[in-house]
């Protein structure tokens, strides 16, 4: 786990322990699954716990982590994200699992070359005669194309 991931992991668990008490005032439940099953609105915990990780999201400087181009550089810009609690257990931090989905800004798809996608950032001022800067990268696990538009 990277430092960033560990901070997200531990702080979101702490926040889950705090925020879940509102939905668990008799202390009957231990897991997020139990809370979702028995308590109306416990789904709100995705949102409420996300407050603990916003500072870490900001530290990314709008760059999606983990995904690099073929030069090893982070290149996908984002401002949309979605945080979710996959699982958690008040008794055991080892059961705590969260996910953050990052959604890139729009890219232009140019070509697929072997295993690589060749894309460029959207630049409306770029004329057809100018060279455009491109990124080449592999679609790795946990990376997908979210929307596509002709």
């Amino acid at each position, binding site marked *: 786990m990277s430092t960033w991931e560990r901070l997200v992991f531990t702080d979101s668990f702490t926040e889950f322990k*705090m925020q879940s008490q509102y939905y668990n005032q008799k202390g009957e439940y231990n897991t997020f699954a139990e809370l979702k099953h028995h308590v109306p609105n416990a789904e709100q915990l995705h949102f409420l716990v996300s407050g603990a990780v916003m500072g870490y999201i900001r530290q990314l400087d709008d760059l999606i982590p983990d995904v690099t181009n073929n030069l090893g550089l982070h290149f996908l810009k984002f401002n949309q994200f979605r945080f979710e609690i996959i699982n958690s257990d008040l008794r055991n931090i080892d059961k705590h699992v969260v996910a953050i989905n990052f959604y890139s800004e729009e890219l232009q798809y140019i070509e697929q070359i072997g295993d690589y996608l060749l894309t460029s950032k959207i630049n409306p001022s770029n004329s057809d005669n100018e060279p455009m800067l491109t990124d080449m990268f592999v679609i790795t696990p946990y990376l997908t194309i979210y929307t596509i538009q002709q």
Partner: protein
Amino acid sequence: MISVSPTLLDMERKNFLRSLLIGAVSTPAVINACKKSSVANETVGTTSTVTGGSSTANCVVAPTETEGPFPTKVPASYVRSDITDGRTGHKLTAKITIGNSSSNCSPMAGAIVDIWHCDADGNYSEYGGTGMQPTNYQSVHFLRGRQTTDVNGLVTFTSIFPGWYSGRATHIHVHVYNAAGKSLKVTQIAFPEGSGTAVALVNGYSKGMSGYTYNKNDNVFSDDATGIEIATVTGNTSSGFELKIQLSIPA
């Protein structure tokens, strides 16, 4: 840095250009991480290297960056005194004092106080999470805040005067935790009513007061016969309002 063969650029680009959005889940490592107790993986080598796109098959490009800016410990975004996040409305300064009812209501220092309330139109910051919609990460938690009480048991928030929504009197939610994060009390703050009060002066913002639920008909506050949940609110619409309340809670 990459020279692309001229034929590619000569192609009729517009015919096959498409725009796309890439979505990435960043936390496979977190998913696995709960099983790892060591920090052995915290090197930059964890990303698999990829072969360069040149004709030399063994030309491996070294990743130059996998962790981005240096991550530092930060408190939850709720930890702040000004919770307005760009919401507009009459300024409200809320001064909440927490006392320990198990000790003659003496000030409770170090208690964590969360508050949240609706905006001038009666809307809360989105709950999200249940849908599949991504959100912009700026200001998603508007009008929610967290402060720790000082030696006098006091926390101060800067916000806007809450609007109202159907079925409820004007209110602010409060959740008090001890310093260790154990929940001590979940409650709500009510507002005084009648001629000259802040509720009357704000006049429900753009909604007006038609259909407003007053405290005596509010399903949360109607049993508060002595008005113990009603704050003292002073001020006016031009210079803003100040709310004061003492909440006594068994520590």
